[in-house]
């Protein structure tokens, strides 16, 4: 009772404030909990980082351990070996330390990778133990045995250690990301809790509100019951105010109102009756007019609209009230030709009737074509009474016509413009840009390795991808820009109305980012990247053809830059592209015109400095540009396939020339010929070589073929097969520019080779870089242990020569002895040596 005499506001607010404060406090508490869990997870992440660093340290230390061991093996002095052993011991100790750290200190954080880690540790310990055993052999001067042990240990452990370490690292990375995920989910969980508290607070408030309201409602119900009585005519039903709150006040004022209503009621009944009679009459006309399915409009003799039917409203959106009293002109759009209206009025004047197509505007502003029939209705004395128009919306028919038009101008698969309409729009855009003194950019977009997707997932998936790419492209550009698919996986974007060139870069970046995001193609996650070439009007071209061509050139440049990037067209690109094409053309001609020549660089035995071999090196004697070195045209030859023709020519020429020298007794060694990666894959290689050898009467033993490490690694199985076939011809094989990769050793054993060529980059720094010197020593030792010979390339100083000779490198080649010489130059060189 006491509560009831309080105001409603007070009845609500007190309990709500209490509940609100409680909810607020709880929320603050849960936020603090959230902060704590964030900190905890942050710590976890830091541990993850540390582990990653430890794994990297293990890797580095292991590779250091291996390098030191190689040095130990290559060493000939017990004292030197003792010093190296101390270093090895330190490395070993360091390795153990890292292992302990990773197992004890950090493993608590991530017990599930304990097994993997222990496997790595076990393998590495096994590897290190094997090495320690072989180092004992090495220290005992049993180098031969030590080398055999090492080869075995590397075969057995090294690749699995490396892959396990990689796996651990990968796990760590995954860990870090899953930590991030759990961080997020913890935040989400806490957030949910906070929300729940807030919500339940809200619910309690609502509950209170409900209780209070319910009490009020009960009293209002009573009021309602009373008002029903009143409305059913018992206007004098009794009602008493029971309190002084708002409900009580309402009750008493309603009581007053009931009385007033009672008075007004009689007046109302009369008015209603009159209105019903008038409406009946109108309804008859309206039904006839309204039920017509065709849109109809009636205007008076002054052509002011007096009525429209519901079909009219349906078709145009205008209701009668919108157009009443207005001239039908308000419906028209400016799309209908003036002549049509002239003809319309003339016909109405003369024949009282017109029909034809009008372009009108709907209420929503959209234009539509309609087929209209208009009659001028005249009275008995031929005076004009009104105009009656009826019409049909013919936009659907128009739509079909438009669709046919669309198909002619658009790409069926993606709905983008096709090449034809893109070019015509670009042409228009060029005219506008010219007039407005603006710029425009053409972006030529080609999807990288789209063919792979077609090949692996099928054309259907490829089509789906193209559609998605088209959609994303659309999202990247403004409405005024043109997007077209001009064939296969090639798209063009024309961006107009630019003030400067940088906008195109922003657009290209956007396209790169959007297109490169992964796609879901029938359940497969597919990623693809675009290469984009940009040309800008007016700088890069003033016609459609020029702009398209320059954008195309720039796009190819992007591909050359490693794909997934964009390039602005530059004049130098065009020159480069033209130059490339002209080099390719000239190179084909050069083969026919015999402009290619061979130079020969002798290789010397390090023992007695006798010439043991001649390396044939191809040069292009260009009629205008002089001698062109091979690095400027071999790549082009490889890419264009000319290499096969060129390679055969080199074989033929080198073997012919060598045969001549050999039979004249000038030289008693072999000729070395370089083999490109493409040639190595050629099926006819062995047959070609056999035929050429036969023609020039040169024996296989006089020929050495040099292949690069990378060419041999590219397709190892095929390479081994091919090299074995070549070996059957009696030729010997050399690995060019040999480095000391981890994978090399085991693989090297499988190749039927006889010689390693030590890369010039190692030789160059022998004197200054102890690492390079060690690599040279280890390579020589490894090669000799495998029964291979070693040729050092790029020997330029006496110090390099002495170092290499001292360490039993078998053969030397370089400017110190002789640069590559033309055949006549080599004649002189050999003759001079013979007479000296």
């Amino acid at each position, binding site marked *: 009772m006491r509560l009831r005499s309080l105001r409603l506001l007070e009845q609500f607010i007190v309990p709500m404030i209490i509940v609100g404060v409680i909810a607020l406090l709880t929320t603050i508490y849960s936020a603090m909990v959230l902060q704590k869990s964030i900190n905890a997870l942050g710590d976890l992440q830091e541990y993850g980082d540390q582990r990653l660093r430890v794994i990297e340290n293990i890797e580095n230390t292991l590779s250091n351990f291996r390098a030191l061991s190689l040095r130990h093996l290559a060493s*000939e*002095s*017990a*004292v030197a070996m*003792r010093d190296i052993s101390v270093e090895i011991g330190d490395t070993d100790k360091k390795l153990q330390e890292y292992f302990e750290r990773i197992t004890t200190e950090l493993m608590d954080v991530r017990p599930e990778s304990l097994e993997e880690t222990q496997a790595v540790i076990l393998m590495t310990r096994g590897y290190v133990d094997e090495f320690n055993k072989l180092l004992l052999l090495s*220290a*005992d*001067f*049993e*180098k*031969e*045995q030590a*080398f055999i042990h090492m080869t075995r240990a590397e075969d057995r452990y090294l690749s699995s250690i490396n892959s396990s370490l990689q796996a651990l690292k990968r796990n760590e990375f995954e860990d870090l990301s899953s930590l991030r995920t759990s961080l997020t989910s913890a935040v989400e969980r806490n957030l949910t809790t906070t929300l729940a508290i807030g919500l339940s607070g809200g619910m309690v408030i609502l509950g209170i509100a409900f209780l209070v309201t319910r009490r009020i409602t009960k009293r209002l119900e009573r009021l309602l019951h009373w008002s029903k009585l009143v409305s059913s005519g018992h206007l004098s039903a009794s009602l008493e105010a029971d309190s002084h709150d708002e409900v009580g006040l309402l009750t008493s004022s309603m009581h007053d109102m009931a009385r007033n209503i009672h008075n007004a009621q009689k007046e109302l009944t009369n008015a209603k009756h009159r209105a019903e009679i008038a409406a009946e009459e109108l309804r008859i006309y309206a039904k006839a007019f309204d039920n017509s399915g065709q849109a109809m409009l009636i205007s008076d003799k002054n052509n002011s609209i007096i009525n429209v039917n519901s079909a009219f409203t349906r078709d145009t959106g205008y209701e009668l009230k919108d157009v009443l009293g207005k001239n039908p002109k308000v419906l028209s759009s400016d799309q209908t030709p003036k002549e049509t209206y002239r003809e319309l009025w003339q016909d109405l004047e003369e024949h009282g009737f017109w029909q034809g197509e009008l372009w009108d505007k709907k209420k929503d502003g959209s234009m539509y074509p309609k087929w209209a029939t208009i009659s001028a209705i005249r009275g008995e004395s031929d005076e004009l009474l009104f105009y009656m128009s009826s019409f049909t919306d013919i936009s659907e028919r128009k739509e079909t016509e438009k669709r046919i038009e669309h198909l002619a101008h658009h790409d069926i698969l993606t709905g983008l413009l096709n090449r034809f309409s893109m070019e015509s729009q670009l042409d228009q855009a060029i005219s506008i840009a010219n007039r407005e003194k603006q710029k425009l950019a053409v972006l030529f977009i080609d999807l990288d390795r789209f063919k792979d997707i077609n090949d692996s997932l099928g054309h259907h998936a490829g089509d789906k991808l193209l559609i998605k790419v088209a959609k994303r492209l659309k999202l990247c550009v403004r409405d005024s820009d043109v997007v077209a698919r001009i064939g296969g996986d090639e798209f063009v974007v024309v961006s107009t109305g630019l003030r400067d060139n940088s906008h195109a870069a922003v657009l290209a970046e956007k396209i790169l980012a959007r297109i490169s995001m992964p796609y879901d193609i029938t359940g497969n996650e597919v990623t693809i990247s675009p290469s984009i070439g940009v040309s800008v009007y007016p700088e890069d071209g003033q016609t459609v053809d020029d702009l398209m061509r320059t954008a195309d050139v720039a796009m190819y440049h992007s591909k050359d830059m490693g794909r997934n990037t964009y390039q602005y067209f530059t004049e130098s690109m065009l020159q480069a592209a033209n130059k490339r094409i002209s080099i390719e053309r000239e190179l084909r001609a050069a083969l026919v015109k015999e402009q290619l020549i061979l130079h020969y660089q002798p290789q010397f035995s390090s023992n007695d400095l006798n010439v043991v071999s001649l390396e044939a090196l191809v040069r292009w004697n260009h009629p205008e540009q002089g001698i062109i070195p091979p690095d400027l045209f071999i790549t082009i030859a490889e890419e264009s396939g000319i290499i096969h023709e060129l390679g055969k020519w080199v074989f033929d020429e080198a073997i012919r020339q060598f*045969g*001549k020298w*050999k*039979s004249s007794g000038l030289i008693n060694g072999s000729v070395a010929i370089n083999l490109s990666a493409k040639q190595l894959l050629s099926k006819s290689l062995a047959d070609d070589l056999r035929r050429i*050898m*036969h023609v*020039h*009467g*040169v*024996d296989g*033993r006089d020929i050495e073929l040099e292949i690069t490490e990378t060419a041999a690694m590219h397709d190892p199985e095929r390479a081994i097969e091919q090299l074995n076939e070549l070996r059957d011809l009696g030729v*010997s094989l050399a690995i060019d520019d040999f480095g000391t990769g981890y994978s090399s050793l085991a693989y090297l054993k499988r190749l039927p080779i*006889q*010689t390693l060529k030590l890369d010039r980059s190692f030789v160059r720094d022998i004197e200054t870089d102890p690492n390079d010197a060690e690599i040279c020593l280890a390579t020589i030792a490894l090669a*000799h*242990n*495998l*029964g*291979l*010979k070693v040729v050092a390339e790029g020997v330029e100083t006496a110090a390099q020569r002495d170092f290499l000779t001292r360490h*039993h490198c078998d053969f030397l080649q370089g400017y110190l002895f002789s640069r590559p010489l033309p055949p006549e130059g080599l004649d002189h060189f050999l003759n001079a040596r013979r007479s000296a």
Partner: protein
Amino acid sequence: MNRISYPGLMPLLFLLGVALPTVSFSAELNLAVANSTCTAIRQVGEKYEQRTGIHINYVCKSSGRLAKGLNGKTIQADIYISANKKWMNYMIEHGLVDASHVTIPWGNELVVAAPASSPLQMESWQDLAGADIKTILLGDPGTAPFGRYAKEALQHTGLWDSVRIRVVTKKHITLLAETLANADPDTVGILFKSNITEEHKVLFLVDASWHSPIRYFMGPVGNAAENPAVLDLLTFIQEQESSDIFRASGFKVDVE
């Protein structure tokens, strides 16, 4: 022995077939010989060239590197001479030499030597572990047989562990002989008696019972066993005239 089998004929015909158009066929023989025999075998070879007109090429390396090179096809030779049994066995195991053709023409002895100008003296073998000697040059036991014999001797006499820290190895004997000639006075080397020159001073003769017998093993490589010229040269190398040259060079010639 002189009958040429059919499969052996095919590669021969092929080689002749491609060689005939430009190169006239001339007899040439290639010898792969252990470094220690290099000087002596060249003298024998010269005599043989004078007698027959057949030109001989020589590859001189440590026995082990020759064997590996022949196996890896980086060296081609008609005759192989090894300074120990191990590497000849390696050739036989790899099917490069037929065991029935192998002969043992010579033996050798090990000496401890110093540079000619060195004041060092050795009373006994144990002096190697003494304070006067700082460095001991050995052949690489893995590939150079004279190093293997020396290590055996040091191990047999229980000296190896105490002298090991003074050891520096060399890949082959000519290299060791050269290095020793120009070495510090406190350096000694253990090498074959046959490789001692005027630039060396012999300090000690190593007891032959401390190591396995030093024997040379000679055999024709692969198809060369069917080449009459090769067989002729093999015979010549073992004739009296040749043996005299080897004896004069310090080899033991009456061995079996």
